[in-house]
């Protein structure tokens, strides 16, 4: 069980003063302080970790965010930025002496510029909300995390979110043009803009994936793309996880880049089929969803080549989607996969390691062995094309022993990813969950540089504390 820091008694003692300060900045409905009403804010998409915060603030403008941060900075209150609260790594887990800064009221589309192919939105707009705003004109926003229906763009920037279609289009960092962000002192920064590369240091590269620990992002300018002429998905079913893994390796190794290449194993196939009724192959041990796009001729050519690449692996079946509705159902199952596992297990922990695709068969075999060793079932659902694994370790939160085993199992999977040349996180962020594994990934000098970077933005480490760095790590000013 990961430890959370002890709340600071002096901050708890100044609770009334902090609340009064928040009330002076925000309307009554934007400040939550009653214990009963704070409870639903005690956790995010990783409900194994919980702590009721001191207060919740729900600003509606960048200026309000700046005022809240300034107040918290002046008193020394820790701040937990929160979007939709869908983080699977505990990125928004609160602390008892911290203010949760929820950005979900900042949900306006500010500007859409088709001539320059960009959209500017507030941080609390959902990922899919951007695509919905521009779809009428044939455009879309490419990164598509599976939680895209609910997750918010501010959080996507914080975690550098990916998604199934990132194999072709890249992750959040590759689709970001500009940001408005607020520092812990309450200064408002305007970074990047509608032009290629930005002046000075690569601000956007620095802030994307910084997990709410450097600044609070309030507005985001993203690249929007013209949608493809068409797209088609196919399903290929295999006799074992390893064989499906070999097939992924063969497809990627051939130089073809499908727009998406997704992997699901037997437990995942069954859970998702129950939700999406997509006609998934229930007899298979593993299945690939392979999507190609372009003109019809281009799609046909690519699908033919992919089918030929699959054949040596003796697929149980291969099915090409025949209609947009069929493709939609296929993706509905995949996008709802994590939640759908709720049908077969009361709780799960979703891992997010990334490995070189050539190591897939071996890693899948070893995850299977660990599953037997720990006596816990695992469902594998992941972005196979870019080697981003999402093994879902199933456990029962009402049984503490099973939870502890799940934690150890998860840590072993991530260590394995690092061991084969990969890393701890592909798109969910380190958050709370993978904090203590950072020393496994990074050497002390590498971690030290990251800590000094944090110091430069937030010397007292008030922003999103207890995340990313192992808990023993301290700001320089405390040393």
């Amino acid at each position: 069980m990961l430890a959370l820091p002890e709340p600071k008694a002096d901050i708890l003692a100044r609770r009334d003063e902090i609340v009064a300060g928040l009330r002076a900045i925000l309307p009554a409905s934007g400040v939550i302080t009653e214990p009963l009403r704070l409870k639903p804010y005690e956790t995010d998409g990783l409900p194994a970790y919980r702590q009721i915060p001191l207060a919740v603030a729900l600003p509606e403008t960048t200026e309000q965010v700046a005022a809240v941060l300034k107040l918290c900075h002046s008193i020394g209150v820790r701040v937990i930025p929160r979007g939709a609260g869908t983080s699977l790594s505990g990125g928004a887990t609160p602390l008892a002496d911290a203010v949760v800064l929820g950005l979900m009221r900042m949900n306006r589309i500010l500007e859409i510029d088709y001539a320059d192919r960009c959209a500017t939105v507030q941080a609390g707009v959902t990922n899919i909300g951007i695509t919905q705003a521009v779809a009428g004109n044939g455009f879309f926003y490419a990164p598509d995390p599976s939680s895209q229906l609910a997750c918010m763009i501010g959080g996507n920037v914080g975690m550098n979110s990916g998604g199934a279609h990132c194999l072709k289009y890249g992750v959040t960092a590759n689709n970001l043009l500009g940001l408005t962000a607020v520092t812990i002192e309450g200064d408002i920064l305007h970074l990047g803009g509608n032009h290629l590369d930005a002046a000075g240091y690569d601000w956007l590269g620095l802030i994307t994936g910084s997990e709410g620990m450097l600044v609070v992002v309030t507005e985001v300018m993203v690249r929007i793309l013209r949608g493809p002429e068409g797209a088609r998905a196919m399903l290929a079913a295999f006799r074992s996880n390893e064989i499906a893994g070999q097939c992924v390796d063969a497809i990627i190794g051939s130089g073809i880049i499908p727009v998406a290449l997704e992997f699901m194993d037997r437990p995942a196939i069954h859970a998702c089929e129950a939700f999406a009724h997509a006609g998934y192959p229930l007899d298979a041990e593993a299945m690939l969803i392979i999507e190609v796009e372009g003109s019809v001729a281009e799609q046909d050519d690519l699908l033919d080549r992919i089918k030929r690449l699959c054949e040596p692996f003796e697929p149980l079946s291969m099915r090409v989607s025949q209609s947009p509705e069929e493709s939609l159902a296929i993706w509905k199952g995949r996008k709802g996969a994590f939640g759908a596992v709720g049908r077969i297990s009361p709780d799960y922990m979703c891992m997010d390691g990334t490995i070189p695709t050539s190591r897939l068969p071996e890693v899948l075999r070893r995850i299977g062995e660990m599953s037997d060793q720990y006596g816990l079932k695992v469902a594998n659902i992941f972005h196979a094309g870019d080697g981003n694994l999402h093994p879902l370790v199933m456990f029962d939160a009402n049984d503490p022993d099973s939870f502890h085993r799940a934690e150890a199992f998860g840590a072993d999977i991530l260590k394995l990813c690092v061991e084969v040349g990969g890393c701890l996180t592909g798109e969910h962020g380190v958050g709370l969950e993978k904090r203590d594994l950072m020393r496994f990934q990074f050497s002390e000098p590498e971690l030290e540089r990251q800590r000094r970077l944090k110091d430069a933005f937030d010397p007292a480490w008030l922003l999103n504390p207890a995340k990313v760095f192992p808990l023993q790590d301290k700001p320089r000013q405390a040393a």
Partner: protein
Amino acid sequence: MQTSFTAEQLRDPDIQSSNKILRTCVHCGMCTATCPTFVLLGDELDSPRGRIYLMQDMLESGRPATAEVVTHIDRCLSCLSCMTTCPSGVNYMHLIDHGRRYVEETYTRPWHERLLRNTLVRVLPSPSRMRWALTAARLAKPFRALLPGGVFGSRLRAMLDLAPTHLPPRQVVNGVHRADGTRRGRVALLAGCAQQVLAPSINAATIRLLTRLGYDVVVPPSAGCCGALTHHMGQHDPAMAAARTNIAAWSAEMAGEGLDAILINTSGCGTTVKDYGFMFRDEPEQAQAAQISALAADISQFLSRIGYAPTRDPAGLTVAYHAACSLQHGQSVTAEPKTLLRKAGFTVVEPAEGHLCCGSAGTYNLLQPEIAGRLRERKLDNIRRTTPDLIAAGNIGCLTQLAGAGLPTIHTVELLDWMAGGPRPAALPA
């Protein structure tokens, strides 16, 4: 999710059911995005996930409901959009039903709130009292401005605003309506309560259409309100009593000449009748209730099943199809009404944000007029952007809520009946 009910608490069948639901939830948060109140208010507490959390805490603690929790439970529309979205299959409907009942049993509302709720419970399910109340409301409309401010006054104003300016004449549909020509089967129709008073033309169109298609239509005189209105207000006993009366009435028909289906043309009621099997899971009527739920069908489902064909030339009208939440989320009936309307020759357009509630939600527009009003405007904006000639929906609540905005609101079945030989709907300008 983790739960911490004691063995003692888990002996209560309602707690048992809710525990199972809570354990299915994995707290992924997908539901927040499609919840109308979260979209409007931007607060986890007004999202399904937040309410699930509040209800879990309330039920686990075993303490009486508090004012804070009641506020957020009351703001839930029970539109069940979250259930369509939920990948884990969380039965939010059964959980919130339990939550509302727990609130009613443990929490004392302020006097004006009780007065209002008790009045609604007595009036809405009874066509005669409803008729009387609407007449009174019509007479009171000129004095609207004299109402006090505050929550109480705003709710009274909401009621006056929703009351129609004139009431259609009473029509009695009880009894058996014989099939025209060769008889293909026999169905029961739930005549409903509020709908009978507000728009008797809906039942009339349903009966004409079904008899024309060769079905005997039975409306047992003893059947009445389905119980949904009281059920959604957490009033368990009146809801069960209403349902029990219907179960007895329809069971008698099933045992007599038999029924091929129990048809409902108000989707809000349909969701509840389809849930009788669950509501009576521990009651002596369990088997009959389950049988009735299995036989229950929305009119659009039944017409799709038996085949519908128009006899008139297309009217050349563009219909904005408004999916009632109880139909699309509560019963997962989505394609049938649109397919039927297209078959009948209408151009069907679907407004954006079709998954969001219009704010009607049973008694919601009377109890939460502010949120209901904002949802109505949002819905109408989306509808207007499709430049339709009229709005069609399968639920009287939505039709009343969206009326008065310059677009005729007409029940799907009235349009289908018209194109199959029935009269032109009165709401449609000539």
